[in-house]
Every structure is written in structure tokens, then in C-alpha cells.
């Protein structure tokens, strides 16, 4: 908003006016050696893939290069080797097997010059959307689409991600498919952002463990100028606690990055001795055809 920018400028002027000087100082901390960064979102719909890159000390101005010379092994929950993944281009290592729901997978990665890293996660069962009520309202100058989404939460802790994808049936659109942001003030959604607006909704079942739960989301204005043939896909991702923590923290990190008034964000990692996130997810898609 203009006013926020104005306020930032005002503060900046004050601080600049008072600022006497800047000087480089020595980093009073151990300069960290590069570590392996392992990233993988694995699901039952595709073969196992893991991306390897390296980390650097924050004062190292080198590139965060991909690591293609490593070895990535995938083990099952009992520690038995399933497959050693094959190195492809751009630091991606791919296997031939497809993860199975209900199984835990452990990823071990090593590369010359780096300490080995490992991470494990469970591929959870998809929780389906059991119903969506739609309500499209048009006002004088804008319109909105309210969706009331119902899920049946299984007993035990569950973690969810929600995304809405719009696919226009018109080739003249520059981007016929895009993720539609949505609003929700539902208490299950955990956000600390500037508003109740989400691109990736993150919620967990603390408030409705083992119960049927219905929550509303609303798409506004330009997102709801649908023509006949347009498609809105509501995608519910069921993931692990690790996947949830990672997705939530990276979202907050990106939102807060560059805002001097925002609280610092620590991005979650479940990779031991390294960075990144190895997490399983399953998805359920509910299409709404116009």
C-alpha cells in the first residue's frame, strides 16, 4: 500500500538522518564450510527424485552450485537399500522406483568434499475432499467466488497444504494456467502474513482431529472472471509434519524477506548435517468446471 511505503520512507529518512556511519566489521563467528543441500518432494505419482546443491557461508560470494558428483541412496524404513539414484542434469538424481503410500523413505547423500547428509519421511495417505459448495457473487465493480470445502480428517495428526489452480479455456491467455490466491479467515489456517491471503494455504487438524471439517475460502475479482469451459482445480495436499513445517516456513521467509520490520524467519530443514527438505506428499484434486 502507498501509505506503508510512505511510512517506510519516513522511517528511513529519520534513520538515515541520524545514521553517523557504516563500516564493515569482522564476522565474529566460525566461517561455515559448504554443506550438501538435499531437496525432494516425493509422491506416489512419480519416480523418486532428489536435488543436490551446496550451501556457502553467508560471506562467501560464490555460486550456490548444483552438486552432480554425489551419490544418493534411498533406503526403506528398515534401512534396506531400495535404489541408488542416477545423477542427471542440474543436480537432479532420479530413481526408477515409485514411492508407495504408507512407507518411510530415507535419503542418504554424499559427495566428495562434503559431509554426508540424510533425511527420512513418510509418504502419507491422501485425504480426499468430500465436497465443495460454490457460491459466486457479482457486485457492481467486482465479484467473488466462495468455496466451502469439506474434508474428512482421519484420526491422528495430519498436515495439509491447499492450492487453487485456474485453467482458462482460452488460448489467447498469456498464462492459461495459474495458481489463484485466496482469502480465508478460518482459524485452522496458520498465517502470520500481511493478511488472510494465501497462495499456498497451510493448515493442520488441531481443531478438528478425526472429524469432518468444512472451511471457506474466497477468490476475488480477476480470479473469478470465468468463461464457460474454464476450470478451477482445488488441490488438497496431505503431507508430513516435515513437509508442512518446510512449506509454511519457506512461505513466511519469502514474504518477510526484504522487510526490515518483519520478524526473522527460520526455514525448517529435516536434513541431518545439511540443509533442505525431503518430504512426501499425496494430493487430491477437485475440479470445478464452468
Amino acid at each position: 500500500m502507498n501509505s506503508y511505503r510512505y511510512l517506510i520512507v519516513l522511517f528511513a529518512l529519520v534513520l538515515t538522518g541520524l545514521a553517523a556511519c557504516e563500516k564493515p566489521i569482522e564476522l565474529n563467528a566460525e566461517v561455515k564450510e559448504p554443506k550438501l543441500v538435499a531437496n525432494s518432494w516425493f509422491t506416489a505419482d512419480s519416480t523418486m527424485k532428489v536435488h543436490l546443491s551446496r550451501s556457502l557461508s553467508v560471506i562467501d560470494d560464490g555460486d550456490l552450485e548444483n552438486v552432480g558428483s554425489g551419490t544418493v541412496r534411498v533406503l526403506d524404513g528398515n534401512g534396506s537399500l531400495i535404489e541408488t539414484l542416477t545423477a542427471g542434469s542440474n543436480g537432479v538424481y532420479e530413481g526408477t522406483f515409485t514411492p508407495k503410500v504408507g512407507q518411510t523413505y530415507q535419503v542418504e547423500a554424499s559427495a566428495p568434499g562434503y559431509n554426508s547428509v540424510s533425511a527420512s519421511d513418510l509418504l502419507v495417505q491422501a485425504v480426499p475432499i468430500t465436497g465443495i459448495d460454490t457460491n459466486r457473487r457479482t457486485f457492481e465493480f467486482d465479484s467473488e467466488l466462495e468455496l466451502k470445502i469439506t474434508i474428512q480428517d482421519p484420526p491422528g495428526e495430519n498436515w495439509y497444504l491447499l492450492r487453487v489452480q485456474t485453467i482458462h479455456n482460452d488460448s489467447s491467455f498469456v498464462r492459461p494456467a495459474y495458481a489463484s490466491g485466496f482469502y480465508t479467515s478460518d482459524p485452522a489456517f496458520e498465517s502470520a502474513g500481511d493478511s488472510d491471503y494465501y497462495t499456498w494455504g497451510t493448515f493442520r487438524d488441531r481443531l478438528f482431529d478425526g472429524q469432518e471439517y468444512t472451511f471457506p475460502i474466497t477468490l476475488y475479482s480477476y480470479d473469478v472472471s470465468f468463461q464457460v469451459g474454464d476450470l478451477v482445480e482445488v488441490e488438497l495436499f496431505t503431507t508430513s509434519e516435515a513437509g508442512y513445517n518446510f512449506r509454511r516456513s519457506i512461505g513466511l521467509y519469502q514474504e518477510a524477506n526484504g522487510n526490515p520490520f518483519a520478524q526473522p524467519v527460520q526455514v525448517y530443514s529435516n536434513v541431518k548435517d545439511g540443509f533442505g527438505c525431503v518430504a512426501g506428499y499425496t494430493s487430491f484434486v477437485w475440479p470445478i468446471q464452468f
Partner: protein
Amino acid sequence: MKSLFTFLCFCIAFVGTAQHTISGYLQDNASGETLIGATLFDLKSGKGTTSNVYGFFSLTLPQDTVKLRISYVGYETQFMEFYLNADKTLNVSLSGVVALNEFEVVATEAERIEEKSEMSTIEISMDKVKSLPVFMGERDIMKTIQLLPGVQSGSEGSSGLYVRGGGPDQNLILLDGVPIYNASHLFGFFSVFNADAINSVKLVKGGFPARYGGRLSSVIDIRMKEGNMKEFHGEGSIGLISSKLTLEGPIVKDKTSFIVSGRRTYIDLLARPLIKAAGDGSVGGYYFYDLNTKLNHKFSDKSRLFLSGYFGNDKFYSRFKDEWTSSGTTYKTEEEGNLKWGNVIGAARWNYLFSNKLFSNTTFTYSRYKFLVGFSEEETWSGQTSGSQTFSFDYTSGIEDYSGKVDFDYLPHPDHYIKFGVGHTYHTFTPGVNSYKENTSVQGESSIDTAFGSSIQFGHESSLYVEDDVKIGSRFKGNFGVHFSSFYTGKKFYNSLQPRFTGRYMITENLSAKASYARMTQFLHLLTNTGIGLPTDLWLPVTDKVPPQQSDQIAIGAAYTAKQQYEISLEGYYKKMKNLIEYKDGASFFGSETDWQKKIEIGEGWSYGTEVLVEKKRGKTTGWIGYTLSWTKRQFDNINFGETFPYRYDRRHDIGAAVTHKFNDRVDIGIVWVYGTGNAVSLGLERYNSLASVLPNDPQGGAAEVEHIENRNNYRMPAYHRIDLGVNLHKQTKWGKRTWSFGLYNAYSRQNPFYLYFSTDSNGNRELTQVSLFPILPSVSYQFKF
């Protein structure tokens, strides 16, 4: 049998001996100003008392000859001897020692530190505040308090206080008994208290007496002067950035007096011609002002009324005008932006003496703190076409209180000083409300008038307390009390019973051991994420989802007076705090479309440490040195992955030294030195690429560079230290006294860290960069007194 007989004889003797009460007021001989905490001591019976904040005292003694010693720091001690055979009213005026002998500052026989039952309590001499070197020529009580052990200053230049690991909201700052919510001017570089209008300052860090409540970490009890009852006087100063003037005097001699004290900065006025000369149509500036007023009237020796007020505002402003013509149409635009905040407080107090043992004070107060950011733009056009378009945006937050309370001091016996009272406050919170207005004459476009953000909330806070300062035997003196408070949010009722105890045991004549315990409950929260005391911090009430803050603090210590002139205190404390609030990861006060309750986490805090204070109150050289060794931690389930982390102001070592030396009646100097372990900040020390999306082909996906922060507040800034020097040159003139004050803030020009960030140098190398605010800053001010 023999002991029973002795006991009966003692009882008969006690009952049979007539008791009489000496009561009255203690005041300054020259001005009639109340002397707070002055001591009356009967040398014969060994019993004594002290005057309360209104100068009232009451001492009940057996019928006999009494030899009274009446003393107060910086005043000539008076001795009185008379036969007490009836209740006696005694209004005593003491003469300032400095007036008799300006060569030496003398502390006379006041109650010594080891004799007091209170601990973790420091009274700050206004003379000391006025003689220490100052920042930009502005004498500042809060900056003097920062030099004391257990009190940390936060950021460079800030007047914010962090007491024993508590946050800035946990300080109950009282001006004549009325809470001040934001005690800062200019983002905390100056406090709102004008030293010329202040009579006394008392800091309580622990062992809180039951009469105080509502905050966890400290009480700063500031009492304004009442105004000279004898003759008209004035004092003022002209400094580099501001000037101030205080006028006081009798309206009816010895009956009614007033004091008015005002201050204003004038950077904006000085800079205005330069800005106008720049000629780009813009005008901008900053100023603050404050005004203290007080009127008091004695109806009789039993009844007295005080009316006091404080008004203060800070304002940043900018205005821009432009006009141009295009295609036969003349366009005019006018933009204006404001950032302003301020306090208004008012108090009406009525002292009434029900009897010579029962003193009452009834108070009605109003306190308001308001912060506003406003931006507006107006565009008009005329000629070929005509029309107008305006929009304005305001962001408001604040708190407003209406309060009433009745306090009683009951002194039935020299060994008991009982205080009790009851109070109620009605709070109105405005925790960040946005309003947006748009008016247009353009066809097809509509006007907007909307408000959004957090809703206004109300709260009822009540309190009830009783305490007794009791002497048991010759060695033990304790203050036992209980404070009960409650808060009603409109949906939920909270209440809290808070036991309090503090006591001392005399080990030798000059050495005592002390201990205290206090439970404190706070029904207000301050949501802050900048750490530099910006006025954007939000005052918030407890709600049905956000419970009250609570702390339990224990302290043990010893107090010792050496060679009649060095007071030494050593204290260790442990404080546990719960239901603290903190912004969630990534949250900020911007984007207040979201209700504040969704932006916070609730957690716990701990602080423990040791404080040493050595103070010299006599001689030409006076001052103190304080040292604090402390640890302060926080824990929130959803911050730092639930792990405990150091508080931003977890300061392992903190030293404050303040010394003044009086060469003669014309020259004195002051030196201040401070040292503090660097603040703890969150700094990413490693970086890597992470996946921004779950789906590999997500159009919003891709790699995101992340700076890895291992733990919240994982990095220590460099240590903070500086020395300030000042010299005051006094001269008596025909009309009064004038003083030239010269000062050097940060005399060795230490580049202290204000904040750190990573940058890239001209060769493309990444480096850690420190921003510092103030190098060596000279100051000069001219003060006058008549």
C-alpha cells in the same frame, strides 16, 4: 511462672503508658516543596518513620520526652526536643545544605540503605540527574536510570528500559501516580520527562510493595514538583535542539501554588528556510513539545487538592504542492503526510487526613496515548475538463484510560506502617485501525469510506491491596502485603492474587541481609518487533485467547554502608515470566488487515543474575558504579522450533558508572561510562537454495535462496561502550543564577552498533556491515534560574 509474671507486667506497662501521635508534613524551607521519604527518628525511644509521597508523616510514641532528629538527603538535619503529653501536629521545614555550603554535597543522617526493608529499590537524586553529562544538551531521567544495575538501555540513544530481563511494556511508569504508556520522544532518543518539573524519582526492580501492580518488571514512580508556595521563581534552558521554561510560584502564599513547565524542539523551525530555499514545493520537519502543569491548594492542614496535567506530542510532517498545465487543463496536486504520537494525562488528587494516624489520597486520572500515521492526496483540475479526486489513509493505534483510586496510609504504631487501597481503571484500546477514504468526481468511479484492521476493545481493571511495613525486634523489618487485581474483557474475567514480601535482617550495625518475593500480573501486552521503541508498538489487552502476563521474582541480597559514605548493595535475583507475547515468525506491524491475535505467539521467559551497586553520596566527589551479570531467555512453542533462545537484550555484562565532582561553587564536572555486552540478533550465517514449491512444474515455484538462521538471536553484536563528559559553569547574577553546560557525548567516538546487515563491497565481496548512529557529539546549553 516468673516469665508469665514478667509478661503480664510488660502488658500492663504497655497498656498503661499513654501513647501520643506526632503528625504533620515535611517541606523544603525555601519553596514549600514536599520532601518525600524524609526521616523522623526519636533518639530516645529508637523509633522512627518516613514521610510519604505527599510529605505526610505520623509517629506514635509513649508519653515522655522525645528527641526528634529530622533529616533528608541534601538538607540540614533538625533536632527537636519536647515533652510529648498530647497528640501534636508538627509541620517541619528543612533548609537545603547546598544553600549553606555550596562546596560540598552532604548527605545527612537519612535512613541508610541497610536499614530499609525494601530492596531492589533506588531513589534517584534530581541534583544528580542535573549534574551528569547529557545527550544533545537534554537532561533525561530515563537515561540516568539506564546507568543503574539491572536496567538496560536497549538501542543506542534510546530511553527505553529493559529491567531484569523484562520488556519495555513491563515498566509501570507513573507520573504523579498516572501511568504513561509511551515515555519517548523522537523514537526514544529523549524521554517525555522534563527534569525541571520533577521533584523525585524512584525505581523499583523487585520486591514490589503491594501498592504497586499491573506490570511485571519495574515501577518508576516520578513525582512532579508542586510549585513554590513562598515566592515566584523560574528556570529554563536554551539548548542546541530545544529550549524549556519552568515557572512556579504562589497564587495565595502558603495556600495555593502552581507550576508550569514547557519544552519544544526547533529543528523544524531552523530548517524551514533551507527547505523553502530548495524550492521544490515540499515542506517537512519534525518537532516535539511537552507541557507539565500543576496546581495545588491547601484547604487546611487536613485537606489538600492537586490538579496536574501533562501534554506532549511528537510530529513528523511533510507537505508537497505542485501545479502544471497540459492540453489546456491546469492540474494541482497537494500531498501531505504525518506521523505523530503523544500522551495526554490529567490527575485530580485530594489528600485528606481522617486522623493523625490515617492519611488518605483519592485520585481520578485520565491517560491517553495515541499514534497516528496519515497520508492524503488531493488532485484538482480545471480548464478543458474539471474535477477533483482525493484520498486519505490513516492508521491509528493507542490506549485511553479513565481511572479512580483511593489509598490510605495508616500508622497505628511506630512498628507498623499500613497502606491499603482500591482502584479501578476503564481501558479503551485501539490496536491498529486503518481508515481509507476516497472521493472522486470522475464519472464511473465511486467514493470509498472504509475502516479495517483490529477492532476497538475495552477492559475493566480493578485492584485492591494491603501492606504493612513492620518491625519485629531490633534486627528484623519486613514489608508484607497482598495485591489482588482483576480484569474483565467483556467476554472473560481474569483475577490474580499476588503475595508480596520484602525484608531485612540487621547482621551488624552497618550490614543487613535482605530477601524478597513478588508475584506480579499484567493485563496489558505490548506488541513490538523493532526493538528500538518505535511508536508503532501496539498496546493490547488480555483477551479470551491471550491471557495476562505473570511473573514470580525472588531476590536475596546484602546492603552495607562503609565509612558513613559508601553504600554498597549486592543482589541476586531469579524471575520467571509466563504468557509473554511475541510476533510470529515473519510478522510485522504492517499489514494490520489481520487481527493482532493471529500474529502473535504466547510463551515464557526467564531472567536471573547478580547486581552490585556502590554509591558514594558524601563529599565533593559523588556518584555510583553498578555492575550486572545476567542471563535472559525466552521460549515460544512456534518460534525457534520451540527451543529456548536468548532475549534480544540478554546482556551478560552491563556496567554503568556516573561520577560528579564539585570543584567549587562555580565549577562541577560529570563523567558517565557505560559498557554492555552486545545485543543478541538473528543473523543468517549460511545460505543455500531451497525449493519454493511443492510441485516441480509449479509456475510459482523455483529455487529460493535462504539465509539460514541457526537459532533466534544467534549472533552477538559488538559490545557497546562510551564515555560522556560534561562541565557545568555556574555564576550567581543579580537576578539569580546562570549555568553554562558543555558536554561531549561518546567522547572517544566509539562506533557502537545500531544494526548489522550483509552487504557487498566494491569488489563484489560479501561482508558484514555495521551501522552506527552517534559519533562524538558536543553539546552546549545555557540554563538560568531566578
